[in-house]
């Protein structure tokens, strides 16, 4: 009983968009796709949605091929946001819901409830073109969930949102999770991933480089991070001399060092105490996803590999 992506490959001309990708996403889980532009996140989602067909490999949901799953199984928030500009909000949301088999009365009720929740009930009768980008994004989120899908796929749902709207959307996220929905989203905002996701997959050029629960991924390197701040010695030059310790960041607030696998991070604390340092801050942690991401994917590739639609002047 899960969403199983099995050895999926997909090529667009010169570009290998997905290369033998296998993933398992548990029902009720919040799953994050991480990757630079062109890593294959959107293609992977479109294949799950059966908007695209893979060259090889299969996708199954609860043991059945995704091609046989009813369309209303899925809710989709595309990366490229678009609404019918001249149509009013209520009318088009009801239209989208009806396409997914929701009765128009029920749909209207649901729409009004969600607009209320997003604090924009007065927008029901406005045309989409009169709304700000952030509000249009909220409208699209509503469009994606009106038919109560079991799996919600969202492509960069937080991009371009101000903090207030991002918080509202996160709330809605958690609401969907509490309703037992499976949530899959792509992003390159690592903090959001650490905050919301239980599992992730880091994609690079169509391949899964790391995957699994956030905990396991962060521990997978075997390294530990230590953050230390002591009174009167901001340089802490002695730190680099310790066995298996490498300073990664020197700052006024604290100094960060990486402890190689097999070494005890506690040794750093003991060394500081034995030197008689007055310790202001000490913290042991797994590497952040951002660190792992940069380690795995390297410098963000600046060459344009993306297949995502380029902006066009409308």
């Amino acid at each position, binding site marked *: 009983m899960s969403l199983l992506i099995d050895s999926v490959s997909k090529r667009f001309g010169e570009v290998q968009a997905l290369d033998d990708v296998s993933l398992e996403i548990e029902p009720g889980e919040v799953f994050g796709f991480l990757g630079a532009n062109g890593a294959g996140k959107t293609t992977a989602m479109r294949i799950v949605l059966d908007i695209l067909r893979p060259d090889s490999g299969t996708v199954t949901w609860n043991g059945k091929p995704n091609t046989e799953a009813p369309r209303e199984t899925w809710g989709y928030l595309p990366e490229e946001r678009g609404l019918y500009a001249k*149509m009013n909000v209520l009318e088009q949301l009801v239209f989208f819901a009806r*396409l997914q088999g929701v009765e128009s009365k029920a749909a209207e009720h649901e729409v009004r409830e969600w607009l209320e929740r997003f604090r924009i009930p007065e927008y029901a009768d406005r045309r989409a073109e009169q709304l700000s980008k952030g509000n249009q994004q909220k409208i699209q989120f509503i469009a994606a969930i009106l038919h109560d899908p079991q799996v919600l796929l969202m492509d960069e749902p937080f991009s371009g949102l101000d903090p207030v709207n991002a918080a509202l959307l996160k709330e809605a996220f958690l609401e969907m999770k509490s309703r037992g929905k499976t949530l899959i989203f792509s992003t390159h905002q690592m903090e959001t991933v650490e905050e919301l996701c239980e599992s992730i997959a880091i994609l690079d050029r169509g391949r899964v480089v790391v995957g699994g629960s956030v905990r396991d991924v962060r521990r997978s390197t075997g390294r530990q991070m230590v953050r230390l701040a002591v009174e009167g010695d901001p340089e802490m030059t002695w730190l680099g001399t310790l066995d298996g310790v490498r300073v990664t960041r020197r700052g006024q607030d604290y100094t960060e060092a990486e402890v190689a696998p097999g070494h005890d991070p506690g040794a750093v604390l003991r060394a500081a105490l034995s030197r008689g340092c007055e310790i202001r801050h000490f913290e042991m942690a797994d590497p952040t996803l951002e660190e792992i991401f940069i380690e795995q994917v390297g410098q963000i590739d600046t060459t344009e590999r993306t297949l995502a639609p380029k902006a066009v002047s409308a």
Partner: protein
Amino acid sequence: MKGWRTLFPNAWYVAVREYRSRVRTRSFVLGTVLLAVIAFAATQLPVLVDFAAGSSQTRLEVVSTPGMPADSLSLLSETLNGQISATAHPPFVVSWLAEGDIASAQQALENGKFDALLIVDRDPASKNLTFTLRTDLASDGPVVTSIRPAVALLALDDALARAGTSIGAVQATPLTVLPVNPSAGPANSVSREVSTDLLSTGLIVLIFMAIITYGVWVAMSVAEEKGSRVMELMLNATTPLQMLAGKVIGNGAAGLTQYGIILAAVVGGLLAQGPIHKAVLGTDAGNTFGGLDPVVLAAFVILFVLGFLMYSLLYAALGSLVSRQEDVQSATSPLMMLIIAGYVMSVFGLQAIDDTWVKIASFVPFFSPYLMLARVSMGHVEAWEFGLAVLLLVISIAVALFVAARIYSAGVLLYGQRLSLRQVLSAARVSR
């Protein structure tokens, strides 16, 4: 494939949305009103022409003399007004005063009630009619010039009456027309072909205009959806086939609505022509309605709908190839060529309706809406031929639907520069 799931109700929802958003646009409302007003005004042109002609009318009063033939008045009037007498506004208004009081007629003339007074008398010696015209119009002017042969004819008619016959009887002399070889039967009558030729051209133009105007709407609406990225949302909610069908039906219905309103304005205008004519000019207009064969009308409706469906599907497919509405025109120009080619063929085909190439082309789905209609309206077609053309058209619509859905489902996901058909076809193979 899931793409071929049941069409309804989603195609219907899409169609309703397309229809509503189309008829609500300002361009639709303004366009419809403007075209309807123009169409109505155009039907009133004859009234305007008659009204303008009214100022050049000559009022002629005739004082007769005893013993004139009974049909003298109508003979004079017909001669003066010629063929035009059938129209509502003849150049001469002739009134007749039998053996009346010349003095009072003279009085009316002086008061300006008439432009000219024609006094008829009989020469006591020769018994021939004599004519006197009292008028201030130039004696060598066009009015007097046209009255001269008319009175001569009256005199002739009178002389004939006294001889025991009449102009009418002489004019009724029969003429038998035979071809060069008399045994080949009666000569061809071309008059029927001339009138149905006009009717066919009218109906073909109606189909041509509808396809060329409203087909582009379908392409526009596809491109708009792709340009605004709503497509991305729609792709998960519907299948390409549902979208296609909905768009064609919705935009087609909106187009037909506009067409219907304009045609209603034309019909209403023609019906109102009589009353308006009477109100403005006080005379009746000639009947403008020709008979329309119900068989031709039925064939027109069938070919109109099927032809529109097929071309709209192709328009939708081509519309999916562009990312911006501005590019629709150039992307659809090959289709435009095909449509115009069909129209031009039908124009020439009407002149050679029994030629083999016309017969063959009238079965080719791209051209049959025009050419089969031409053949039907000319009455040069067998029932099975019409049935075959319709069948071929229906089959090609099914094929067009399949191909268009393929191109469409691939095309809507590809953005950027205008796509070549080759790119799309290779993409169509890998998409659902």
